[in-house]
C-alpha cells in the first residue's frame, strides 16, 4: 500500500505558483529524498503534506486516507522543521516530550522514548538544556528527536542534518538509515547534501521551480538523467557540458563534433537527431580518463589541479565547454600540475547527449521506463 499519494498537487502563494502539478507515490516504508535548488519548493511540499499550507488544488492521501482538508493533527505525520521550531522556554527533554500526549502514553513510556531517541542522536547529556544553551547542530538533533519519538504514519524531515559537522553527519546519517530499517518508517527527506541523497534515498525526487523533473533510484538518476538540469544537479563535481553539432546519428550511436573540432562518440539512440543539429554533450568528471592517444577528443592544458586526497581534480581549458573549462577526476597519483598538457577520453556508454530543448537522448539498447 502506498503511504503517501500526491495527485496534481499545486500550491500558489497569491499568484505565484510554488508547486506545480506534482504527482508522487511513496510506498509504505520507503525513504524518498527530495532534492532541488534553494527555493524550488521542497519545504513547501512538506508543509502542504503536513497540512500547514492549504492546497490550491490536487489531492493528498496518507495511509490510504484522503487527508487534504484535514487539520495537521489528524494526518498522522511527524515533521521536523528546517528552522527546528523548538519551544524556547522548554528543556530539550520537554521539547521532545511535549508532543507525546499523556492520554496515549504513560510517563514512563514517554521517558523511555525520549531517552532512547536522545541516545541514538547523542544528546543524552543535553536533555536539561534549553535551546538557547545549545549549538545549532545540537538544536537540530533535538528537533529530529522530537520527530522520532512519535510514531506517525509518515515522517517529514526538512534538512535534518544540514548543521552537523562531517563526522557527526555521517554517524547521524547511519543512525537514520538504521532507524528507517528498524521502524520500517515512511520518510520524506529534504536535503542539499548529495551524499545523503545518494546513500539514504531509496528513491530521489528532483524538483525545479515547483515541478518534478525526475523520479528514480539514485543510480537511475545518476546514470540516466532525463535532462540537462538533472544531469547537472546530481553528481559532484557537476557533469561537464560541451556544445557540439551532430556529425552522424543512428539508433546505436551519435558522433558529435565539439567546437574545437574533436569528435566524441556517445552510445545513445540518435534517431531523433539530424545532421548538423546543435546538441549538448555531457560527461561526468569521474568518467574522463587520461590517454596517450593523440586523437583523443578532449585535450588542453591544465589550469588548476586540486588534490583532495583520494583524487585529483584537473581543470582544463577546452573550447565549447559550458563553463569555459572541463573537470576531470584523475587518480591522485597522476603527475599533473598547472600547465600540464592532458589528453582525455570518455567511453561512449558514459557520454550523454542532450537535444536543443535540454532533454536527454535515450541510452542505446535501453528503454527508459
Amino acid at each position, binding site marked *: 500500500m502506498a503511504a503517501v499519494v500526491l495527485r496534481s498537487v499545486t500550491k500558489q502563494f497569491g499568484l505565484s505558483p510554488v508547486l506545480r502539478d506534482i504527482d508522487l507515490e511513496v510506498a509504505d516504508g520507503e525513504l524518498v529524498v527530495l532534492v532541488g535548488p534553494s527555493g524550488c519548493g521542497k519545504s513547501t511540499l512538506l508543509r502542504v503534506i*503536513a*497540512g500547514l499550507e492549504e492546497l490550491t488544488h490536487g489531492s493528498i492521501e496518507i495511509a490510504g486516507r484522503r487527508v487534504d482538508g484535514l487539520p*495537521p493533527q489528524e494526518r498522522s*505525520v511527524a515533521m521536523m522543521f528546517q528552522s527546528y*521550531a*523548538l*519551544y524556547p*522556554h522548554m528543556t530539550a527533554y520537554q521539547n521532545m516530550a*511535549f508532543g507525546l*500526549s499523556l492520554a496515549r502514553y504513560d510517563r514512563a513510556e514517554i521517558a523511555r522514548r525520549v531517552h532512547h531517541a536522545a541516545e541514538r542522536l547523542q544528546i543524552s547529556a543535553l536533555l536539561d538544556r534549553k535551546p538557547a544553551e545549545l549549538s545549532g547542530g545540537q538544536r537540530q538533533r533535538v528537533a529530529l528527536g522530537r520527530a522520532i519519538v512519535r510514531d506517525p504514519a509518515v515522517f517529514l524531515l526538512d534538512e535534518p542534518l544540514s548543521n552537523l559537522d562531517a563526522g557527526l553527519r555521517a554517524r547521524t546519517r547511519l543512525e537514520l538509515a538504521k532507524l528507517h530499517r528498524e521502524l520500517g518508517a515512511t520518510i520524506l527527506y529534504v536535503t542539499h547534501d548529495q551524499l545523503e541523497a545518494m546513500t539514504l534515498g531509496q528513491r530521489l525526487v528532483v524538483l525545479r521551480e515547483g515541478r518534478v523533473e525526475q523520479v528514480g533510484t539514485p543510480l537511475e538518476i545518476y546514470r540516466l538523467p532525463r535532462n540537462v538540469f538533472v544531469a547537472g544537479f546530481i553528481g559532484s563535481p557537476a557533469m561537464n557540458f560541451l556544445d557540439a553539432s551532430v556529425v552522424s546519428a543512428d539508433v546505436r550511436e551519435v558522433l558529435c563534433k565539439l567546437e574545437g573540432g574533436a569528435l566524441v562518440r556517445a552510445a545513445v539512440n540518435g534517431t531523433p537527431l539530424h545532421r548538423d543539429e546543435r546538441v549538448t554533450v555531457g560527461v561526468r568528471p569521474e568518467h574522463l580518463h587520461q590517454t596517450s592517444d593523440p586523437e583523443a577528443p578532449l585535450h588542453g592544458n591544465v589550469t588548476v589541479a586540486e588534490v583532495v586526497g583520494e583524487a585529483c581534480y584537473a581543470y582544463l581549458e577546452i573550447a565549447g565547454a559550458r563553463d569555459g573549462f572541463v573537470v576531470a577526476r584523475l587518480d591522485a597519483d597522476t603527475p599533473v600540475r598547472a600547465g600540464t598538457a592532458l589528453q582525455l577520453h570518455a567511453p561512449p556508454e558514459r557520454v550523454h547527449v542532450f537535444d536543443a530543448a535540454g532533454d536527454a537522448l535515450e541510452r542505446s539498447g535501453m528503454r527508459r521506463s
Partner: protein
Amino acid sequence: MTPMVVALAVAAGWPLARTVWLSFTDATLAGPADVAWIGFANYLEHDAGEWYGVLADPQWWHAVRNTLVFAVVSVGLETMLGLAIALALNTPFRGRGLVRAAVLVPWAIPTVVSAKLWAWMLNDEFGILNHVLLGLGVISAPIAWVANPDLALGAVIAVDVWKTTPFMVLLILAGLQMLPQDCYEAARVDGVSPVKVFLRVTLPLLWPALAVAVAFRALDALRIFDLVYVLTANSTSTMSISVYARQQLIDFQDIGYGSAASTLVFLTIGLAAIAYLRLVRLRPGETA
C-alpha cells in the same frame, strides 16, 4: 549616564524632596513663609490621649482600601480582557487592521473627557444607561450609579476597564507578535490541544511582556486621580489616596498634612512596585 542622573534629580528628585520636607512642617497654603518643623506630627502623633495625623485618620485608611480594591480589580479585569481580545486580534481575519485601530479609541480619548462622557451616560436622571435598562425592563427605577456608595466604586472600575483595556490589548498584542510562529506549527502537527498550547507555550513565553504590562498598569492604578475626581468628586465611597491628598492640600489648604499624605502615596506605590518586582522575579523557572 551622568546627565541622565542629573536630569532625573532635577525633574523628579527636587519636587519629591521638597514634598517630603514640607510633610514635616506645619505649612499651610495661606502662609508658607513662616513654617515650623513639627517632626512626624503630620503622620502620627499622640496628644492628650488622642491619636492625630494621616495614619490615624480613618478616612485615609478608607482611601487606601478603595485604592487597593480599585487597582487589583481593575488591573485584573483589564489583564484578562486584554489577553482575550489580544488573542482574538492576533488570529488573522478580514478587516483585522481596522478592528485593531478601533479598539484603541477609548484609550485615545483624554481621561477627563471620557470620565465626563461616562458621568453623563451614568447620570441617574438623564443618563442613557438607565434609559436603556428601563426600556428593556431590566430595572424598574433609575439607579444612581455614581451617587450610590455601594455602586460608585464599581462604576469607577467599569469606566477604567473600558478606558484602559485597549492599552493592555496593545501591549499584549505586541508581546504575542514576538512569539516564534514555527513553534505553533510544530504543536499543530504534533496534535497538542489548543488549551495545552496556550497554558504551556503562549503563557510562559508571553509572561515577561505580561508582567511589564501589569506592572505599568498597577502603578498607574495606584495613583488613580482624574477618573475618580471627575466621576465622583470627593465622595468618600470612592476616594483614592491621591484624591485624599488633593483634598488636604487644596480644599483644606493644609500643605504640611497634605504633603504627608502625598509622601505616603509615594511610599505605598514604591513599596508596591518593589513587592511586585520581587514577586515576578521569584516565579519559578522564569529567570531568563
